[in-house]
C-alpha cells in the first residue's frame, strides 16, 4: 500500500460517504477532491520520472493470473494530474446536488484506476465500474429525455465491452502469457489472425470511448441530457479514455492486429475529426457544440496515435490530458452561463461581454484553447499529432486538420452570438468562487500551452518505446 493506492480509493470512500450522508456538506467534497489533487501533485513532484513508480502488486485471483497491480508511469502520472485537477475544479465550481458530487467522486476512482492499472483484468474492472456512477448521474439528475440517453449510453458501452472482454481473455490465453500483468502480456504479443481478432475486440469498446465515428453516436445525447451544472459532462469528458487504452493495451498487445487495420483506422480518425467539427458548426446549443467539438479533437488525437510514430503518440496523450482540462473546463463554464441565463441555447441571450467582461475573457481563453491556439493547452498535442500523422499519411492529415478551420468557425460563431453583438440581457460577472475556478483553469491551460516541455519530455521516452513496437523510427 502506498500513496497511489490511497489516492486511488480516497475519492470512492469520500463519494460513498457523501451519497450516504449528504449532510457532510460541500466543504467535505471540496476537501476530498482537493486533497486528492494535492496528493496527485505531490506524487508527481516525488515521481522519479522514469519507469513505474508507486507500484503495488498483489495476487487478486492468483490461480487465474489476475493481480491487483497498480502503478504510475509518466503517462499515467500526467493523466492523473489532469483528472484530479478537473474533478477538483468541477466540485469547486459546479452547482450540483451533493449526492451527485458523491457519484462524481466515485467515478474519479474508476478513472484513476483506468490510468493506473497494470493488470488487464483490473483495467477492465475499473473501465466498467466507472460506468455505474456515470449512469447514476445521468439517470438521477439528467434532463427530460435522460432515459433514452441512458439506454443508448449503457448499450453502446456494454455491447462494446463484450468483445473487449473476449479479447482480454484471448490476449492472455492465445498469447501464452502467465498472467494478465502488462509485462507478461507485452512479452507475448499476439501474432497473425489472433492478433487481428483481439485488436478488433478491443477496438469496439475503445472506439465507443474514444469516440470514433460512428460509435460516437451516444455522446451528444449523453451531454444533452446531463445535469446543466456541467459536472457530469466534465466527468464524461474524462471518461473518454479510448486513446489511452489503445496506447497502453490494445496496440502493444496486438501490434500486428493494429498494423493490419492501420489504413482503416487512420481514415476513420480523419473522418471523425472533420465530420464532428463540421457537425458542431450546425449545433444550436452549447452542449451539442462541445460534444461534437470534443469528438473532433479525439479524432485528431486518434490520427496521431494511429500513425504509430513517437510524435503522434506524444501528441495524442498530451491532447488527451489537455482536453480533459479545457473541454471539462468548458462544460463547467457553460454551467456558469446556464446559471445566469437559464438556457443552453446559443443565440437568445447576447452581448454578455458588456455586463460580464471577466466572464467573457474566461470564455475567450477556453474557446481559444479549444480551437488549438498556440500558447494555450490545445496546441502542443494537436501539433505533435499532426507531425506524426503527416509521416503516416499526408492526405488524411490534410483532411483531419481541415477541422481546425471548422473549429474556428463553430467556436467563434457561438462565442460571438453569446458574448458579442448588442446586449439584450445584463448578467452578474464572476463571483469570488468563480474567480477561483477561472484562475485554476487558466493557470493549467497556460502552463500546458507555454511550457509543454514539462510533460512532453516525460511522455517522449514512452512514446519512443511505443513507436518501436511498430518498427517506427523514434
Amino acid at each position: 500500500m502506498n500513496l497511489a493506492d490511497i489516492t486511488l480509493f480516497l475519492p470512492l470512500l469520500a463519494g460513498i460517504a457523501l451519497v450516504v450522508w449528504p449532510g457532510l456538506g460541500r466543504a467535505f467534497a471540496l476537501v476530498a477532491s482537493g486533497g486528492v489533487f494535492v496528493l496527485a501533485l505531490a506524487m508527481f513532484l516525488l515521481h522519479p520520472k522514469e519507469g513505474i513508480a508507486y507500484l503495488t502488486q498483489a495476487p487478486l485471483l492468483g490461480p487465474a493470473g489476475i493481480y491487483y497491480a497498480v502503478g504510475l508511469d509518466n503517462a499515467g502520472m500526467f493523466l492523473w494530474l489532469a483528472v484530479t485537477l478537473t474533478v477538483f475544479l468541477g466540485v469547486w465550481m459546479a452547482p450540483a446536488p451533493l449526492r451527485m458530487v458523491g457519484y462524481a467522486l466515485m467515478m474519479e476512482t474508476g478513472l484513476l484506476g483506468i490510468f493506473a492499472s497494470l493488470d488487464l483484468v483490473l483495467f477492465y474492472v475499473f473501465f466498467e465500474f466507472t460506468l455505474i456512477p456515470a449512469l447514476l448521474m445521468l439517470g438521477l439528475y439528467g434532463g427530460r429525455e435522460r432515459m433514452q440517453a441512458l439506454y443508448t449510453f449503457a448499450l453502446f458501452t456494454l455491447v462494446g465491452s463484450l468483445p473487449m472482454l473476449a479479447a482480454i481473455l484471448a490476449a492472455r490465453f492465445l498469447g501464452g502469457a502467465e498472467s494478465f500483468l502488462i509485462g507478461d502480456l507485452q512479452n507475448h504479443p499476439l501474432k497473425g489472425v489472433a492478433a487481428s481478432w483481439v485488436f478488433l475486440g478491443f477496438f469496439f469498446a475503445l472506439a465507443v470511448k474514444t469516440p470514433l465515428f460512428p460509435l460516437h453516436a451516444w455522446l451528444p445525447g449523453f451531454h444533452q441530457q446531463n445535469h446543466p451544472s456541467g459536472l457530469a459532462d466534465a466527468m464524461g469528458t474524462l471518461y473518454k479514455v479510448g486513446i489511452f487504452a489503445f496506447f497502453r493495451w490494445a496496440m502493444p498487445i496486438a501490434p500486428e492486429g493494429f498494423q493490419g487495420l492501420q489504413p482503416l483506422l487512420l481514415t476513420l480518425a480523419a473522418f471523425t475529426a472533420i465530420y464532428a467539427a463540421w457537425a458542431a458548426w450546425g449545433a444550436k446549443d452549447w452542449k451539442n457544440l462541445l460534444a461534437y467539438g470534443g469528438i473532433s479533437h479525439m479524432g485528431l488525437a486518434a490520427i496521431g496515435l494511429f500513425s504509430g510514430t513517437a510524435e503522434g503518440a506524444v501528441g495524442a496523450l498530451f491532447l488527451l490530458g489537455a482536453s480533459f482540462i479545457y473541454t471539462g473546463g468548458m462544460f463547467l463554464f457553460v454551467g456558469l452561463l446556464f446559471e445566469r441565463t437559464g438556457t443552453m441555447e446559443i443565440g437568445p441571450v447576447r452581448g454578455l461581454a458588456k455586463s460580464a467582461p471577466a466572464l467573457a475573457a474566461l470564455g475567450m481563453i477556453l474557446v481559444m484553447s479549444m480551437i488549438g491556439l498556440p500558447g494555450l493547452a490545445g496546441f502542443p498535442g494537436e501539433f505533435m499529432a499532426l507531425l506524426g500523422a503527416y509521416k503516416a499519411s499526408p492526405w488524411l492529415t490534410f483532411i483531419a486538420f481541415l477541422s481546425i478551420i471548422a473549429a474556428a468557425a463553430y467556436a467563434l460563431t457561438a462565442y460571438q452570438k453569446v458574448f458579442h453583438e448588442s446586449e439584450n440581457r445584463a448578467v452578474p460577472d464572476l463571483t469570488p468562487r468563480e474567480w477561483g475556478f477561472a484562475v485554476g483553469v487558466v493557470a493549467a491551460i497556460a502552463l500546458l500551452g507555454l511550457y509543454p516541455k514539462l510533460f512532453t519530455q516525460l511522455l517522449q521516452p514512452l512514446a519512443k518505446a511505443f513507436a518501436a513496437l511498430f518498427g517506427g523510427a523514434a
Partner: protein
Amino acid sequence: MGWLLLLTILLPLLGFVLLGLFGKRMKEPLPGVIASGLVLASLVLGAVLLAGGGAQWAIPDWLPGIAFSLNLDHLSGLMLLIVTGVGFLIHVYAIGYMHADAGFSRFFAYLNLFIAMMLTLVLADNYVVMFIGWEGVGLASYLLIGFWYQDRVNADSARKAFIVNRIGDLGFLLGMGLLWAMFGTLGISEINAKLEENLFIPAGLGLAAFLLFAGAVGKSAQVPLMVWLPDAMAGPTPVSALIHAATMVTAGVYLLARSSFLYINVPEVSLWIAILGLLTAIYGALSAFGQQDIKRIVAYSTLSQLGFMFVAAGMGAYWIALFHVLTHAFFKALLFMASGSVIHALGGEQDIRKMGGMWRYLPQTRWHALVGALALGGFPLLSGFWSKDAILYSTLFYSVNSSVVFYVLLLATAFLTAMYSMRWFVTVFLGQYRGHEHPHESPKVMLFPNHLLALGAVFIGFIGLPEPFPNLLEGFLAPNLAHLEYEKPSLTLEWTLVLISALVALAGLYLGYRFFQQKVMPTWYARFAQASEHSFYVDQVYNTFLVNPLKSLGSLLFDGDKGLLGGFGWLGTLTAGIGSLLARLETGYIRFYAAGLLIGAVLLLIWGVTR
C-alpha cells in the same frame, strides 16, 4: 545575455496581462502611457541588442525535438525596429484617438498583446515558434477588429478575419509537417544551413515551400484569401495602421524572406508567388477606385502594395521586398492615421462623399495626408518611389522568373496607384466641404507621431538607392538572405528605367489630380466605379458558392447525426424493448440496474477465468 531577447517579448506581454487585469481601475491616460512605455522599452532593448551584434535564446526540446528558439539577426532586427518603432508611434497616437472610449485600457492591452506576438513571430528561429506569433497576431487582430463588438458588423468582420486566416494557417501547419518529415527539425537556421550547403535538396521541397506560402497568402491577404482585409477596417483606426498596414500583414513577406534559402531552390513555386502577387496588386488597385470609405481606399491600397512585395519575393529579390515593407510601414501608417485624424475631426464620419475641403480645416494633417498620398503614388525621391522602382527593376533582371510581362503590368498598376491615391487626396482635402460637422484639428498627441512618420515617408527610401549610390539596406540584410547571382544592367539602362517610373508616377498623379476634380464623371468610369465599389463581387461569389453551402452541410451533418442513432436499427429496437421493460421501474431503481451491470461483468469475468 540571451534572456534579454526574451524580455523584448515579455515586456509588452506584461503590459497585456497588467492592463487586462487592472486596466479598468486606472485613470486615462495611464494605460496608454504604460503600454507605449513598454513598447518603447522593447524598442530600446532590441536596438541595443542589435547594435551589440544580435542575440540568441532558446529552450531546447520545448516540444520533443523542437526548440523554443529566438534569433535576433539583421533580418529579424529590421522587422523588430519596424514593429516596435512604428508600433510605438501608433500607441502614442492611440492615446489621443481612443480618448474617452469606454474600452480605453482594454484597447491598449490588446495592442500590447499584438506587439508581443508580432515580436515572437519575427524573432522566431523555429517555424513552430513563428507559428505561435503567427496565430497570436491573428488573435490580437481578431480582438481589435471586433473591439467595438456591440456592433454586429464589427464582430462579423473579426470572425471572418480569423477564419480566413485559418485557411492559410492549415497550409503553414502542413508545410511544417512536411519539413519535419524531410529534415527532422523545424529550426529555421538549421534548415537554411542544410539547404545552403546544398547537401540535401529533397524532392518534396517544392510542396513544402508551396504549403508555407499558403500561410503567407492568408496572413498577407493575397488573392484568393484577400477578402478579410478590407472588412478588417471595422477596427479603430490605429489598429488599421498598426496591424493591417504596417506590421502584421507583412508577416507573409517576412516568412518568405526568412525562408529565402528554401524558396531560392524552387523557382517554380516562386513564380506562383509572383503571379499571385501581381494579381493581388492589380485587384487591389482596381478595387480602390470605387471605395467610398476613407479607410477602405487605404485598405485596398495595402492589398495592392502587399502584392508588389510578393512579386519582388517571387523574383528572389528578398531585400527589395523588405525594402518595400519598410517604406510601406511608414507611408501606410501615415495614411491611415491621417485618415484617422480626418475621421476624428468629423466626429466619426468615414464616407468621403461627406468630406472635401479639409485642406482649409486641418492645417497639419493636410501635409501628412499629402506626403502619404505622394509616397504611395510613387512621387519621385519619396520613399515609396525608391522601393517601388526597385521592385520594377527586379521584375526585369533578377531571376529566371523575371519577365517583361511582369514589368509592364506592374508599371501599369503603379500608374493606377498614383491615380487612386490622388482620388483619395482630392476628394477628402480639396474642393468644398460637403458635410455638416465642425472640423477641428487633432490634439498634439496625435499629430506628433504623424510628424515622425511623415519624415520617414519622405526620407527612409534613401537607405536603398540604386547604383552607383551606396545601398545601406541590401548590405545590411545580405548575411541573412539567400543570395542570387544575376547579370546587372548598365547604369544607363538602370537610370532610364528610374526615369520611366518617375514619369509614369508623375503622369498618374497629375491625371488623378485633374480627373477626380471633375464634377461629373464619364459614364464608362461610373460603370467601372460601381463594380469596383463592390470589389468586383468576390465576397458575394464566395458566399454563394463556398460559405453558404459549407454552412448548410454543417446543419445537415448535425441533423443527420441525430438520425445516426436510428441507423443503429438493431440497437434502436433493443433500446426500445429494454426501455418498455424498464418503463415500469421507478427511476430510483436505476441504481439496481447499474449495480446489475457490475455484477454481470464480474460474473462473466469469473466464468471466463475459471472455466
